[in-house]
């Protein structure tokens, strides 16, 4: 008799444990306000990334098309996997001296691992991260970007 009671008790406990689980899923079934799915392309307008989000490396320019990059190459040295390549040129300053300046700051987004070492070590704070995250392109060559805009100049007062 005792074994039969144990057998029945086992069944009841098992069913009870199953019902507890069903309670959880059942609860969420009737709670449509707890749905966490985001409808992505539709919510693009009000989708705000966090300000520190590492989307891609950019070089901020001011309204006079000036940037802060002196072309020193520290970011290139610090980059762990050769994402950044700096092509510098020498220009004549106003007082007639030759000076190194940036010609092209090449950034290969496809190789970047977003370690933030370039942004962190830049002595003149010329680099920053943008919050852009839609990087998909059809041609891999488009992932190679030149960060300084054409015709841009070094900001005054940055050495």
């Amino acid at each position, binding site marked *: 008799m005792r074994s039969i009671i144990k057998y029945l008790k086992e069944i009841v406990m098992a069913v009870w444990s*199953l019902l507890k689980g069903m309670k959880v899923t*059942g609860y*969420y*079934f009737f709670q*449509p306000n*707890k*749905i966490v799915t985001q*409808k992505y392309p539709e919510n693009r307008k009000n989708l705000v990334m966090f300000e520190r989000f590492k989307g891609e490396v950019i070089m901020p320019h001011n309204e006079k098309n000036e940037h802060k990059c002196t072309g020193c190459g520290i970011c290139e040295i610090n980059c762990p996997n050769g994402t950044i390549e700096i092509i510098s040129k020498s220009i004549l300053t106003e007082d007639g001296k030759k000076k190194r300046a940036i010609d092209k700051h090449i950034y290969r987004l496809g190789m970047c691992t977003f370690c933030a070492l370039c942004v962190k070590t830049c002595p003149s704070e010329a680099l920053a991260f943008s919050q852009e995250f839609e990087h998909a392109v059809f041609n891999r060559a488009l992932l190679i970007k030149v960060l300084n805009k054409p015709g841009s100049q070094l900001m005054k007062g940055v050495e």
Partner: protein
Amino acid sequence: MFDFAPLTKWIDTVLHNAMSPFWAVVVEMLIVGVLILLFYALIGLFLVYAERKVCAFMQNRLGPNRVGPFGLFQTIADLVKLLLVELVPIRNADKFLFNLAPFIVITASFMAIAAIPFAKGLHAIDLNIGIFYVIAVSAMGVIGILLAGWASNNKYSLIGAMRSGAQIVSYELSVGLSLITMVILAGSMQLSVIVEGQATGWFIFKGHIPAFIAFIVFLVASTAETNRGPFDLAEAESELTAGYHTEYSGIKFAFFFLAEYMNMFIVASIAATVFLGGWMPFHVGNWDGFNAVMDFIPPFVWYIVKTFFVVFLMMWFKWTFPRLRIDQLLTLEWKYLLPINLVNVLIMAFIVLMGWHF
């Protein structure tokens, strides 16, 4: 209550007047075949959609929402995709059996639908052994699954098929016994008679405790018989990738896929018919006003609502529980369901004998 019998009678007479009896029967069969095929496809598509939505809501998701309003046309888009997808030829597979297997599976579920009474006077064939017919035919699907596993020349498929064989053979027993419990109460195997017998109250209420136990056992066993979670060992995507239909693609895979959902629909409608009164409306004792309102709802709607309630229960199981292991699956059947069932049959027989049911 709306009766389909005069309508079908009228069609029958018209056809018999127009042509010879032989051709009349042929045309009738064609009409029934096409109707069932249409119904089959529609219900299949809707069930796939419903399963996606139900599981999505249980998992805090939205589910399909891109194709059409609320993603209603998602399954149709999927069907089109499946029709267009390449049928990947399998090297060293047994070609004939490999191609035959999906047809066996789908024919089995297709045949079972014939005996189900959808509404008063609306069934393809009213066999006097209706329940036996349905059990027998739906068990045929396992042959297709075994063939699919064997012919695919894939080790995972074979394991899946063997599991499925062991599973369906043993759970068929519980399905049969739990239905027999209700046959004792109904006193007939003819599905229309069973439904008519529930005019004064559904069997699940009439047969009180044993009927309720039989209902639970039937739910568990039929979930297992249709290879659905938590008994989806034959597919077991985390163990056997996709089990017996690993190697199938395109429309052949769609057959398996559709058959799974239709089998679910069929066992749900059997449960609705035998336990929940089929197309009979819900009546409460002497509340005449309430009963009249219930009668106003067409029987077909009653049938669909009850069936989908059972389908929802089965989906709820699937999306809550982890999967069983093969030995636990057999333990559940032989150590728990079968003894409970046998005792239950005895109790039911005793109750019917003493007239203790309502």
